[in-house]
């Protein structure tokens, strides 16, 4: 029994939610009407909505190819993030010499912007012969420090006695990670999946630098190419944005519980 009514809080939250959704609604409305965003007075409800701007986007640029490229790169990134971040996160739960220094190094690396490391990243990718390839597109995002700490926080919550029992039973460190820790870290896995997917999906700068052929471009590059082709893009541009955003939104809606749980555990136990 609450001491005070909760409906005013819920009412306020619903109001704020509507405010947050207005830009999304506006983009969606423009994508099916083509109304100029600067039109005055603005129409709240769409007039004569139709899906033809989506058809235009599909055919004006090789959308299916870009979509496939983005999917492949994102899947590579997500898989690598889960594997590598889990391994790094588990390592950081163990005691080893200079552990504090390594943690400090990781935290300090978070302050280095990606733009500052682009040239060495490009040179390394080039030396590996991975320019203009899916692996080259995904490589710099194979591990992210934020997600390593999400895994570390999740693994720290696992009782030490459980790991000791597994070790006494003869499990190797590798099997402890995958058979003991990972099933207990679903929130961290979901957080890794969503964050890695969204970061990879929206990445523009690295694909712009590392791709050479049009066939290897991803959706954000396709958007830039689309803008350079078309002049009157009000409706089609917004339709393109919806088509780019949709997979990320679907993924978030599917895994939002695990995502929030994982972020919350990372926030409180980091």
């Amino acid at each position, binding site marked *: 029994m609450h001491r005070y009514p909760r409906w005013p809080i819920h009412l306020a939250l619903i109001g704020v939610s509507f405010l947050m959704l207005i830009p999304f609604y506006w983009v969606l409305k423009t994508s099916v009407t083509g109304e100029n965003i600067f039109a005055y007075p603005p129409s709240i409800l769409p007039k004569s909505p*139709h899906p*033809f701007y989506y*058809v*235009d986007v599909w055919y004006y640029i090789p959308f299916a190819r870009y979509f496939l490229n983005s999917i492949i790169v994102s899947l590579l990134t997500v898989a690598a993030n889960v594997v590598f971040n889990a391994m790094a996160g588990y390592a950081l739960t163990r005691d080893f010499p200079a552990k504090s220094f390594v943690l400090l190094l990781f935290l300090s690396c978070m302050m280095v912007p990606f733009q500052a490391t682009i040239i060495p990243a490009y040179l390394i990718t080039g030396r590996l012969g991975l320019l203009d390839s899916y692996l080259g597109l995904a490589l710099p995002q194979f591990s992210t420090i934020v997600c390593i700490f999400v895994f570390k926080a999740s693994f720290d919550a696992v009782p030490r006695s459980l790991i000791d029992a597994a070790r006494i039973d003869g499990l190797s460190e590798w099997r402890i990670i995958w058979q003991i820790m990972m099933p207990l870290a679903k929130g961290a896995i979901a957080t890794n999946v969503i964050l890695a997917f969204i970061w990879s999906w929206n990445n523009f700068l690295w694909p712009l630098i590392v791709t050479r052929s049009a066939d290897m471009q991803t959706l954000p590059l396709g958007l830039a190419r689309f803008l350079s*082709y*078309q002049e009157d893009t009000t409706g089609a541009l917004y339709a393109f944005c919806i088509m780019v955003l949709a997979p990320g939104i679907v993924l978030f809606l599917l895994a939002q519980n695990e995502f929030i749980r994982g972020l919350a555990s990372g926030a409180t136990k980091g």
Partner: protein
Amino acid sequence: MSANPVEDPFWRRLVLNRFVLVPALLAVAIALWNVYVAAHDHGIVAGRVVDGAGRPVPDAAVVLWVLNFTTYVEKTRATTDSAGRFVITNNDSHNIRLAAEKPGVGRSARVPVRLYFRAQDIELREPLILLSAS
């Protein structure tokens, strides 16, 4: 789906969850759409041409324009039969315009036609109406 996962067999837990069902439904919808497209993408555009009084106009020239990136260019022509009907069979665009003309009778407005996919078969609901310049 049961509330108690212990009672569910492994295959059921593996298949009947939102991470499998939602992509599966999307895949089914995409497959059905592609089947529909494959069955209706012969590039047929059919319709009628009438005069201002609503009478069929035979031997009228119907012109099909397709969007060539930023401008519409003439793609093909057809001629109406005695009932005023025309059939174009080689449209490969999703964004077309149609117009009809017959010397001595008049010409129609250029009618924009948007299609859901390239080369979609379509029967125009409204006829092209020839109006004299005078």
